[in-house]
């Protein structure tokens, strides 16, 4: 059951290379890069939410470039159709047969830029693929190749021309991160680096899809003890019981939380999950799934604040 130390070394080596590569593009944001890797290895999908221009797309692209695998980018616009995402069957005059032309989702890494600018119908088409890892067009089902990672970026919902992502769809993202503005030093270094050429252009792949699949297999072997499971369930249950939240986390959230924690543990060279992994990932994994109650919202509370106080109240089990 436990993971051999050689496997953990592989995880550390490969992930180290990816992180190094990505951080050449996104400087000073190692925690965001780490979360991205966690989601990749936990077979989840990542939602990057931030104001325009902080490097959301850069991050997604950098990750995609670092892995020698198929990468597609879909720019979501209000007129984007679901078939643009999933693909479409067209009639081939020569063969006199319908032929399937894969949409943007057919890739190992799909970068969905500004996902909240698309219509809900198109959004849901993508989200269905994310969950089921397959595409069904005209009664025919096409499997998506593993690894399959959707990195969606979105602008904050209050920005103009955006559609709010429904709760059910947000729930399908394993984690949501914000990049935030870079530190001053990083921003100044960026001026120099970006003066000549885009550093993204120089980025070479440091691994490939097969290796990532291997890493995913290693992560799934990480041990989750019963106290840690209890702790994860305790946190999720607390969100459901909180009077400050009108919507708590779903059972899918629990699964995502534990899977993410396993990936985080493996990335840190451990073959077992600590409560600290759970608590560290609770914010990125849970925040986007929770809804504040009206009273809490009126009181100026943020979901993250509520979650933090819940984390302080749920005791860490020792045995």
């Amino acid at each position, binding site marked *: *059951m436990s993971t051999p130390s050689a496997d953990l070394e592989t995880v550390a080596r490969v992930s180290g290379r990816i992180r190094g590569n990505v951080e050449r593009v996104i400087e000073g944001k190692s925690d965001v890069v780490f979360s991205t890797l966690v989601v990749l290895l936990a077979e989840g999908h990542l939602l990057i939410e931030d104001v325009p221009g902080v490097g959301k797309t850069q991050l997604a692209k950098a990750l995609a470039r670092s892995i020698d695998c198929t990468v597609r980018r879909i720019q979501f616009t209000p007129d984007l159709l679901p078939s643009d995402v999933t693909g479409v069957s067209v009639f081939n005059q020569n063969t006199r047969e319908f032929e399937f032309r894969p949409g943007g989702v057919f890739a190992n890494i799909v970068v969905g830029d500004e996902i909240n600018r698309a219509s809900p119908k198109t959004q849901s088409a993508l989200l269905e693929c994310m969950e089921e890892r397959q595409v069904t067009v005209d009664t025919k089902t096409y499997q998506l190749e593993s690894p399959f990672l959707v990195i969606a970026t979105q602008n904050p919902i209050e920005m103009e021309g955006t559609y709010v992502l429904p709760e059910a769809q947000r729930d399908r993202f394993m984690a949501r991160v914000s990049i935030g503005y870079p530190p001053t030093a990083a921003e100044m270094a960026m001026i120099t680096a970006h003066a000549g050429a885009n550093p993204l252009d120089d980025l070479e792949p440091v691994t490939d899809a097969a290796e990532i699949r291997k890493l995913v297999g290693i992560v799934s072997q990480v041990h989750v*003890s019963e106290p840690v499971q209890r702790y994860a369930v305790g946190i999720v249950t607390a969100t459901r019981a909180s009077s400050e939240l009108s919507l708590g986390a779903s059972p899918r959230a629990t699964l995502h939380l534990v899977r993410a924690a396993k990936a985080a543990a493996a990335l840190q060279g451990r073959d*077992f999950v600590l*409560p600290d992994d759970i608590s560290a990932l609770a914010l990125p994994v849970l925040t986007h799934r929770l809804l504040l109650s009206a009273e809490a919202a009126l009181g100026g509370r943020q979901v993250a604040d509520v979650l933090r106080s819940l984390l302080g*109240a749920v*005791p860490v089990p*020792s*045995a």
Partner: protein
Amino acid sequence: MRASRDFLLTLLTAATVLLAVGSWSRIVYGLDHAMVPIVLIGTFVAIAGWGLRLTTTPRWVIPLVQLALAWSVVSSRLTRTPVPLRHVPRLRLEDAFLAAGDAIAHAAPPVPVIDGVLPFVLCGAALAFVVADLLAHTLRLPAVAGLVLLTVLAVPISVVSGQAGITGAARNGVAPWLFALVVAGWLAQVVIAEGDRLDRGGRQLDVDDAASSAVTSRSVVATVAVGGTATVLALVVPFAIPTMHVRLDGFGAGPGGGHVTVTNPMVDVRRNLVQGADVPLVRVTTDDPDPGYLRIAVLTRFNATQWSAGDRSIPKSQGSHGEVPIAGLSPKTPVATYNYSIAINPDFESRWLPTPAPIKAIDAAGDWRYDTSTDDFVAVGKGLNTAGLTYTAVRSEPDLTAADLDDMSSGVGQVASSYTDQPPNLPAIVSQLAHKVTRDADASTPLEQAVALQDWFRESGGFTYSTATDLGSGATDLARFLGSGPDSKTGYCQQFAAAMAAMARTLGIPARVAVGFLSPTEQSDGTYVYSSHDMHAWPELYFAGAGWIRFEPTPASGTVVPGYAHDPTSLTQQPSIGPSASASAQPQAAQTAKPRTNAQQSAGDKSIPIPLESHHTWRWVALAALLALLGALVAMPGAVRRRRRRTRLNGTAEDAWAEMRDTVIDLGIAWADGISPRATRQLVDRYVGTHEGHLALDQLVDAVERERYAASSTPLDPQVMTDLLEGLKLGQPAATVRHAAWWPRSVLHRHRGPGAADRPMDRVG
């Protein structure tokens, strides 16, 4: 674990009640005969209570079962059957209670247990056991159980006259060491129960546990501090405040257990002689080869009801430093002098100073003064008494022969006429008998008359020594003593001395009654001890040129009062004087007049006086035991802590974690609840004072994480804990480390979950 701890606590309660019941020995005697059933009752009540509390028995049933068990023991002791259903046992039971009621109604304390108040003693003890157990354990109110203990202790305090309250408790009703032990037992229960309450109650998650723990620890410390201070004050203050209850005119016995207070000089010497232990009161070191009587006071006034001290003329010049003139002794008479060094037992409080007689010189601290005609010393200073006093005196023994005395007149006219005063209503029988006796003995000189009277009392008069008399020393009682009624011719030193002095007065011989001690017991170290059973009264008659001469009319008894087994005849200290030197003196008297030795005493006496040193030894042993107990109480938390550490250091990583947690708590560092080992490391790390300690902390966190959360764990290197504990200690001030070693907070304020006695939990505070 929990059950055995509860059992020990239950036994502790029973033992504390038992100690408190022990204080009743001040008001009853023979309590030891009741101890077996009392201990049985206590054991039954404790075991039944403990056992029933383990079950789901309703609470109100428990005391009923305990009462039933206790009653079966009481009934077994009184009627030989646990359930007195049949007629005969019922009658026995009724008789026992009626007799007990009668004993209480008609006897002054101490009353006997056997054929006395046994039923009440047993029932009272049973009730105390049951109520204390009910409050302390069934209802979990150990602090309130203290009221039961106070009630039990209050019984002797309220019965024994004297000061009320705790001062009275320490002085009169309850021995201080016993009081301290009972309070210590009660405090221990309160403290342990407080720890228990935390254990069982647990804590709320959102409460700041460190703060909560601090509040709780403060409450425990406050309880102990208040209780402890009150106890110390109760025990110490009475000794710092001068007692005011000793009156000038008196001497008698205090409550039977070892504390003797002089309240009325003539009075109930009998009480001292028959009841309670033979308490050593005075220790004398002397070069006198034959130390004998020690005089406390002289009674000069004779009236219808008693002999009393009369008046004293005590100017300041007649103090207790220097020479004392011997009244009436001719300067020509050669005298031998002996030095006395006298030490009074702290339990002996008297406003009269015991001195050898005749006294030539004295050096005693305090404002003691003497009257030139009586040569007895009375306390003038406020609050002054003999307790614990040490002083020196010189006895002057006139070298007189019987022939010398025989030539002397009675000395009438040389002393105040009051020494021949008789009460106007003195029954004629006294005078008639005096004249008849002297006439029959053909006595013509005052000395011959005195000897005739003495011999008549001792031998020919048909008198019997007995303390079983209710006669006093007044004129009326003496007439009954000398007469032919049912209670005549029976008495003890008080009647003999008073009667001979009264008869001597009717013959015109100045006479008075002296009260003091009979011959002492020689100790192995060469000192002499006078004890409460040596108390005695004797007549002194005045002879011109010789002064006041002692006579001894009391016949030996030897059956009830040990001192009289070896009856010292008169004038033993002055063998050349008086009847014992004459041909008519009792030959056996001279033999037995020597001071008793311990060996003689044990061979001849039924009740063996306790030598002074053994009494002192007992007190020292009690004090040492008390100190040892207090020391053990103080050292116990540290010892418990060290034992836990030893066990844990050989255990798993979890054990090591628990050890670190307790060490952190002991050092006064806040310990957070419900957080992960890594978070704990962040809190603790800043308190570690060494580099090795930091590394060790990392290793411990790693080990405990693996043990808790990994599929397999690795053993912890013992050196890790050594480094970590050392690092923690070096990171703190030395005073904090000492406090942690002696008074570990983790022991005093534990709150573990049930069944997790040695399983560390993160959720500590």
